[in-house]
């Protein structure tokens, strides 16, 4: 008991150093992980689909996929996992950690790049490094999916318009024979540079709902 406890604490410390969370936050996340997986060791898609809050979210499929996407876990591979461990869970969540207050601009730029990379991976479902029109269209359709009266026409129109905007902003004049493949990561960063991702894409990591957890470990 004692050995496993200290071993776990040691592992938490490692995780904390790697991802930037505090020990307290890692403990809370561990409790949450245990709750979600019903005390198993690995998290699967079904566990996430059981969360009631997520069921009404229009983009839940992409959110769930993001947890199992290898590109977010720091490896240079592509593809998906079927189940993830606690470490990988925390790694994905670390993309949403608010940045520390006084950090130099360079680091802030890196953080922004990482968060935008996360978003990009969420859109680029076929892993080819480019967001094509189809993928973007799907994103818009999902966003509008909660409104039953909106047809596919409108989603198509909006995504077309958005792609055109990206093209005109990033590429400018194109020759008559060129055509626009899709949004690359650099272009993605360019069009969203005014969104201040590093301040917006954060959530607080305290006040986790620990009331419904089982006690005893």
């Amino acid at each position, binding site marked *: 008991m004692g050995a496993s406890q200290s071993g776990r604490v040691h592992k938490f410390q490692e995780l904390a150093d790697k991802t930037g969370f505090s020990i307290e936050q890692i403990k809370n*996340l561990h409790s949450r992980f245990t709750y979600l997986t019903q005390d198993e060791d690995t998290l699967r898609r079904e566990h996430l689909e059981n969360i009631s809050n997520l069921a009404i979210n229009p983009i839940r499929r992409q959110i769930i996929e993001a947890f199992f996407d290898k590109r977010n876990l720091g490896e240079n591979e592509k593809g998906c996992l079927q189940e993830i461990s606690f470490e990988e869970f925390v790694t994905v969540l670390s993309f949403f950690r608010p940045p520390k207050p006084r950090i130099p601009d360079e680091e802030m730029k890196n953080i922004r790049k990482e968060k935008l990379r996360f978003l990009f991976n969420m859109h680029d479902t076929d892993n080819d490094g480019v967001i094509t029109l189809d993928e973007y269209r799907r994103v818009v359709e999902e966003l*509008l999916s909660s409104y039953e009266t909106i047809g596919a026409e409108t989603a198509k129109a909006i995504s077309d318009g958005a792609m*055109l905007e990206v093209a005109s902003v990033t590429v400018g004049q194109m020759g008559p024979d060129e055509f626009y493949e899709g949004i690359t990561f650099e272009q993605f960063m360019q069009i969203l540079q005014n969104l201040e991702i590093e301040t917006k894409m*954060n959530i607080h990591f305290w006040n986790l709902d620990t009331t419904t957890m089982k006690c005893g470990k």
Partner: protein
Amino acid sequence: MKMLLLLLLLGFGCGLVFCDQNTSDPHGRRVFPVLSINYDYVQMPFEVSLWILLASLMKLGFHLIPRLSGVVPESCLLIVVGLLVGGLIRVMGKNPPVLDSQLFFLCLLPPIILDAGYFLPIRPFTENAGTILTFAVVGTLWNAFFVGAALYGVCRLESGRLASFDLLSCLLFGSIVSAVDPVAVLAVFEEIHINELLHILVFGESLLNDAVTVVLYHLFEEFAHAGAVTAGDVFLGVVCFFVVALGGVMVGAVYGVLAAFTSRFTSHTRVIEPLFVFLYSYMAYLSAEVFHLSGIMALIACGVVMRPYVEANISHKSYTTIKYFLKMWSSVSETLIFIFLGVSTVAGPHAWNWTFVTITIFLCLLSRVLGVVGLTYIINKYRMVKLSGKDQFIVAYGGLRGAIAFSLAFLLSRDDFPMKDMFLTAIITVIFFTVFVQGMTIRPLVDLLAVKKRKQSKCSINEEIHTQFLEHLLAGIEGVCGHYGHHHWRDKLNRFNKHYIKRCLIGGERSQEPKLISFYNKMELKQALMLLESNSSANLSTAVTAAVPRQRSRKTLNISKEREEEIRKILRANLQKTRQRLRSYSRHTLMPDAEDDDWSETLLRKQRVEMERKMSHFLTVPARRESPPARRAPVESDSRALAARPSVLISISDETSDGPRESRGRKPSVKFALDAEEQKLPRCLSDPGPDQLPEEDEEHIHQTD
């Protein structure tokens, strides 16, 4: 220019003196008066109009003087004008009018607050609501008690006239002088264009501290009557605060809902739509004032609640009317307030006391700085985006006092407060100090400290998509983490809004329209009209690029729904670039709005005629007629749409391509347009995009929040 202003002042002063002359002149039998003067008949409206006219002419004058408006904020200039006018009147032997508190609170203040509340940027406000509330409530309380207690201490130490000040009077004075004034803050901050966060912090604080000020003011006034203070009274005071604040908000919300509901049925009487907005808001303010609730909070709540629903219901013209009227009234009000402040300074009885005044100014500054620093230290523990030292400095430095403090002091009765004159003098000095010294120096300080300025953000469909995507993503991640945070509740509120409230309050099919769609439609419409605007003076017969037009025709045609649909269709096929407008919360410069309804119809017709001529250029390109989508309309409008589209394209390629590239640039655009709906995917995106033009932003698109 200066001579003109001087003459104006002179003429005005004469006019005022002339007002008071007695014109009745009875004798026994008189000749039939061919021409007679009866000034009494029109005196009141005449004087009011003359004042307003003077105020507006002053504003005009300031902006004509080239360098002045860049250095000195308008509020300072207006106070100086007020001083001059007051001096002039006194020189003529009359008593200058003092800023009547009833006039101020019932007529001059509501338009400014309504303007502020109606156009309040909701998203930054709710994101920083906790911070704003803390500054407003805790900060104001701290200021009031610190200034009051310290002043009392000083008065105790000082012998002489000050010794008669008791604790309650000092506390009352502290509560009056410590409230940050929305009018002054608006007047100064609008001209310096700092970033959104700081603007909303200071401005939000100035709006919300009204509740605290009202409660403290009435509390101390009552206690001064009663004499002794018990613990029960203090407790009641705290209860009173909640009643005042929440009651004001509820009154405002009720009236807001009523206004939204009424606007649902106004589709047949579009002309009086703006009137409902104004009347309901004013009634909210007055109803709150009846019960001594916070009128300002009622007004803000009313504006905030009714805005999304009213805007979905009313016509575009009514929206423009509301916007222009609110800006106009609030601008005039603000000008009048500052001029009157100047005049009242000359008028009122003054009791100058060096110690009192200097100590007051010093204490105000000190308490403000201490309060901001202390509160920020606590708040930063709970904020994700911490407030830096620079931010704190701007927040502290932006705590300007204004006419509300003066009017509140003016309302004091002289029996209970024999030192009222001294209070008034001190308050006027504080106001002058903050408006002149702080107002004038804040702009160079902002530049010196390199505070982030307001970003001219683009009106971009990509940003809108991703903003919404982020909202859902963050709500989802919060769900995964089991954390019921900001995003979770906002999501719930949006869903509740969509399912229940929007169904009731928005008429017709607009209630089912998601935000993204309305944003996209608005943007398309705006771009279509802007392209048409630029097209109107583009010389179609030559290939020379045309300058952007500055004058517009003044026809007023009604733009029907079908025309709107057409324009949207044009855009959907041709969404090339986004020319945008400067986002501005400024009251003084309204965005040069495209006069949407006016000339688009005539232009479309004109283009069709010119198009017939131009068509010969494009005989090589197969002009495939676009198959009209199922939901659409008469053939005539289709042909017009078809004819109009290439002309729009031509204007674009005219503007962007020059010389040799022209022919190459033109053909692909036309090919693109005509093939848009039918071509395969990759080709569809072959966008020979135009160059970037300077981009500006349109305010009301982003306000549909």
